[in-house]
């Protein structure tokens, strides 16, 4: 927790995505939460762990399911000043994925490094 130049509280809030997209709504509604929170000038980050990394895969086409897709919204996060996107290295590797398979630039970290970042947070919300 810090204060910004106007003396307002700035909290470190990390959202954790651990679920695959589409099979359940958690990642999608989690992303909606991130977008709203991004308007409040807090220190927001997102970490993608386990099946959460699948949310970032390129070329998701949900038209056949008649479900609204949202992978592209992750690309827009930049415009909302949400720039701290961390991806768990082991989660990528287990799934046979590489950073270039993902729709956005992310920081690939090992689990201990993400664990340290988690511990620095004022709030951690698993979506």
């Amino acid at each position, binding site marked *: 927790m810090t204060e910004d130049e106007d003396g307002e509280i700035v909290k470190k809030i990390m959202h954790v995505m651990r679920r695959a997209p589409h099979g359940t709504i958690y990642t999608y509604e989690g992303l909606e939460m991130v977008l709203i929170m991004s308007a409040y000038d807090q220190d927001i980050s997102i970490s993608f762990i386990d099946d959460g990394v699948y949310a970032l895969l390129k070329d*998701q086409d949900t038209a056949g399911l008649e479900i609204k897709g949202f992978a592209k919204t992750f690309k827009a996060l930049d415009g909302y000043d949400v720039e701290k996107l961390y991806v768990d290295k082991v989660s990528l590797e*287990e799934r046979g994925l590489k950073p270039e398979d993902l729709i956005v630039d992310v920081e690939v970290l090992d689990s201990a490094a993400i664990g340290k970042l988690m511990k620095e947070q004022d709030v951690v919300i698993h979506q």
Partner: protein
Amino acid sequence: MLHTINQSPFRCNSLKTSIRFILPDDPVLFLEDGVYSVQDNNTFKQTIETLLKTNPVYAISHDINARGIKNTIKDVQLIDYEGFVDLVEKHQVNTWF
């Protein structure tokens, strides 16, 4: 008997468990998050390849496309919902989740 599996094999033990109960020749259909099971080059490749030696394996193509899965394990057959209905016409269904 048609076995369907809709859970991610990473998140949940449904694939690991169901395989103990599936008899040879019975078709296995992956849908929803279950389709990650047949993405090529993940840690479940060997499990699926072993299954393919004794059982036909299907996945719903709409679920594959929705998840941006480009390469599926060889011999896994992609079908649509009408293909799913055809399988149900021939078999009773055992839905694992």
